[in-house]
C-alpha cells in the first residue's frame, strides 16, 4: 500500500474550489491570477482531484501566529 501524504499530520487539508467560488475569491482578493502562489499539477496533496491548470486550491492551515488560516494556490 502506498503511503498517503494527506494522512500525515504536517500536511494541511487541501480542497479544490469550484468555478463559482474561484471567481468570487479572485474578485474578493482583487488580484491578478498570475500573481497567486503556484502549486504543481502533480503535487501529491491534490493529485487525486485531477486538477487542471488555472484551478485554485484552498488550503486550511494551522498557523502559530493566527491559529487557523486559509491559503489559496493556483494550479500550474
Amino acid at each position, binding site marked *: 500500500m502506498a503511503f498517503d501524504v494527506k494522512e500525515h499530520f504536517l500536511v494541511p487539508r487541501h480542497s479544490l474550489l469550484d468555478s463559482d467560488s474561484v471567481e468570487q475569491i479572485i474578485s474578493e482578493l482583487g488580484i491578478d491570477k498570475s*500573481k497567486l502562489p503556484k502549486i504543481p499539477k502533480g503535487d501529491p496533496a491534490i493529485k487525486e482531484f485531477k486538477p487542471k491548470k488555472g484551478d485554485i486550491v484552498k488550503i486550511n492551515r494551522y498557523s502559530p501566529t*493566527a491559529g487557523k488560516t486559509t491559503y*489559496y494556490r493556483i494550479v500550474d
Partner: protein
Amino acid sequence: MKKIHSIDFRVLDPKTIRKMSAIEIKTPDTYDKDGYPMDGGLMDPHLGVINPGLRCKTCGQKMKDCPGHFGSIEFVRPVLHPEFSKKLELIMQSTCQECGRLNLPDDKLKMYESKLEKGDLEVPTKIVRKAKTAKECEHCKAPKEKILLDKPTNFFLGKERIYPTEIREWIEKIPEMDLKLLGYDLEITKPEWFITSVLPVPPITVRPSITLESGVKSEDDLTHKLVDIIRVNLRLNDNIDAGAPQLIIEDLWDLLQYHVTTYYNNNTAGVPPAKHRSGRALRTLVQRLKGKKGRFRHNLTGKRVNFAARSTVSPDSFISINEIGIPQDIANDLTLPEPITEATIDAIKKKIKETDEIQYVARPNGQRRKITDETRDLILEEIEPGFKIERSLQNGDIVLFNRQPSLHRLSMMAHKVRIMDGKTLRINPVVCKPYNADFDGDEMNIHVPQTEEGKSEAQELMYVQNNVISPRYGAPVVVLEEDGVSGVYILTLDSTEFSKDEAMKYFYEMGIKELPKPDKGKNYSGKLIFSQMLPDDLNLEYTSNTCKVLKKTGVCTSACKGDKCPYGAYVKIKDGVLETGVIDSSSLGEAKGILIDTLARQYSSDVIEKFYNMVNRVVSDLLTKKGMTAGLDEYEMSDKIKKASESSIENALKEGTKLVKKYENKTLDIIPGKTLQESFEIGMMRLSAETKEEIEKMIMSEKVQKVLGKNPELNTTVMILSGSRGSSTNLMNIAGFWGQASVREGRPKRGFKNRLITLNEKDDVGLITGGFINQNFMDGMKGKEYFYHSMGGRQGEVDTGVSTKVSGYLYRRLANSLKDLFVETDRTVRTASKNLVQYSYGEDGIFPMKSIKGKSMNVKKSIEKDL
C-alpha cells in the same frame, strides 16, 4: 525606457569581428616621436577619442558621445583560444580525423539523436564517454590515435604535435548533425571559431593611457599585451616570407600562442604569467573581471557613494540617544544643499562673507562654483533667491548611521548631528545593542540625506527614539547595558541615600525645576531621585529580576508578599513614584524591560529620550562616587560554606561509589528508553549537578545579605542580582567548586583506552575519574582537574567559533532572500515582482514593532486596567 528581455552568450565569430572592426591594427608602435598616435597603431584615432575637443575618426562624434570602436589583428597563423582548448579536446577525442564523423556506429547515433530530441541534456557527455574509447573510425575505418592535451594549448596526436591549422581542418570536417549531438548549435556557435585567426582589439576607452605628472605616457596592461601580440605576429610573418626553417617558425608560433593565452588570462595554469617591466604581473582580461577586485564584485555589486563618512566609534553617555558626535574634520567635508530664499539670503550672504561653512553655490541651471578667496566677492554679488548653496554639516542636521553587517532595520538609524572635538564618531552606549556595536575598534558609517524628502523620511521612520521597540520581537532594543543597569540598581537599592548636596547635583543634572521634599529625614533616597525621571502618571507593578534570582537560588521560598517583599524585589510605581522595589534588568533590559517598554509605548517618544538622558547622567556620576568593583576578598568564602562544601563533596563521592557499585552489579534503576550505561551516566551527571546546586544556593544566600542589607557591598553580586552581567553559576565557579566537566552534554569520555587521562586507572568510572572537579578558580585546580576542565573549555571555544560563523552566514542568506518582500496596500505580502507570498502579513496581520511581544494586545493588562 526599454526593457531587456533576455541575454544570451555566444562565441564571437571571425566574420563579426571583422565587421565590427573599425581598422586593422598592423603597427606595434603606439605613438610617434612627436607624441601623436600612429596610423594603424594601437592608439589609432579610429578606435575612439579620449581627448576632449577632438572628433572620432570613425563616427565623427565628440568624446562624450563616441562609445569607442573595436579594431582587429589578423594572425598570420591561427592560434587556439585558451579558454576553449578543453572543448576542442573533447571534440577531437570523439571524432575521426579523416572523415570527421563521431566514433560511434550509425544506429547508436540514431538512438542518441532521438534522446536529444526528447530533451536529454546528458547526451553530449554520454557520447563523448563512449566515443573516446574507439580504436578505429566506425565509418571510414581509419585508425585512431590518442589525443592528448598538454595544458593549456598544446595538442598531441599520439606522439606528434598537432598544430591549430590542422585542428581547424579537422573540426571543419565534422558534419552538422554530429556537432549537434555534441551539444553545438551551428546557428549559434561553430567550434572552429575556438581557433582564432582574427583578434578583436578593444577600443581605447577600455585601455586608456595615463599621462604621468612628469609628462611620461604610461600604457594600460592590455595595450602592452596587444603590442606583444602584434610584434610576434609581424616577426612570424617576416620569417615565413623569408622562408625561415620550420623550427624557427614553430617557435614563433608558440610564442604568439603564449601571448594570446596570457592576453585572455594571465593566470592560466601551466603558463608563466606575463610580467610588466617592473616585474609586476599584468592585469589582463580575465583578471579584470574575476574575484573581489574584479568588475563584478568591486564595481557592480559594490558601488561607492558620495556624502558618506566612516570612522571608529567611541561612547559618550552625555549626548542624547538621538545624537551622534561627529568630528569637525568630517563635518567640514560633508555637505548639504539648501535653497536661497528671500528669507535666508541675508544670513547666507553673511555666512559666505565671514565663514567657510558654505562651500559651493549653484545657479538655477545647475552650474556649480566653489567658494574660494578669489571667487567670494563675485559670488556675493551674483547670488539671489533661486540659487542653491552647499553648506558643511551643522549641529542638528539629520544623518543616517550604520554598522555592518546590516542584518535588520535597526542597523541603520537616523541621528542628529553634534559636532565635537576628537576624531571618532560618538554614540550613546544605549544604542550599541541595535547596532551590535562595541568600542574595541568598531568602525561605522554616516550617510547624509540630500533632499527634503530624504531628511524627513529618515527623521520619521529611522529616528532612534522612534525605534526603541524592536520590529523583530516587539520589545525594547535600545536599552541600558552592563554598568548602566548596575548603576540604576545601586541607585534604587533600599539602602541608597544621598545628602542634600549630592541630591541637588543630581536634580541639576536631570534638569528638575520643582524640588521634591527629602523623604529620609534630611536625606533623599535613591528611589526618590529615580522617581523624578518618571512621568507623573506612570503606574506599574511587577516582580524584578532580583526576585527571579532569589527564587532560583532558593533564598526566597515563601509565597510572594507583593509590595511587602522583605527583599525589596517587588517593583511598585504609583503616579510616577517608585514606592518599592529595585530597578534592574527586568525593568530596563533587552527584550524584557517592562519599564522601558511602557515608557516607549504609552508616551510620546520624547519621554524615552529624556529618560535615558537623565539616567545616563545620574548613573555615570553615581558609579564614579559609589564605585562598583570586584575584589578578591569577595570570593573568600566563610568557614561555614567551606565546611558545607567539603562535606557535600564527600557525600557526593560516597553516593558516586554507590552508583558505580550498582552499575557494576547491574542493580541500577534503568531510566525508561535508556540503556544501563546511559542511565548510569545520567545518574552521575545529576549527582554532581545536585551537589553543585546545593552549594551554589548557600553562597548566593550569604552574598545576597551583603547587598540587600545596610551598607551594601557593591560587587559581582550586584551584577548577578540586577541581571546586568554574570550569573550565580559564575560566582560558584570562582568561589565554590567547578563540578562536573562536560563535553557534549555528558561526562567527557574520549581520551585513552578505558580511561579519560593516563593519571587514572583503567576501567574506573567513578566521579573523580569521570571529570568531577572539586576545586575552584580562586584556589586553583589540581593537575588532573585542569585537564578535565580543558576538555569542557575546548568544546565551548569550538562551539562559539563554529556557531557564530555558521549562524551569521545563515542569517545573512535569510535576510537577503527576504529583503525585497513588502506589504501591498491591500495588506498582502508581495515579492518585488508583485507575486503574492502571504494573504495577510505574518498570517495575522500584526506589525511586530507595534505589537506587545508579538501579540496584538495584552489581554490581562487591559482587563486589570479597566477593573
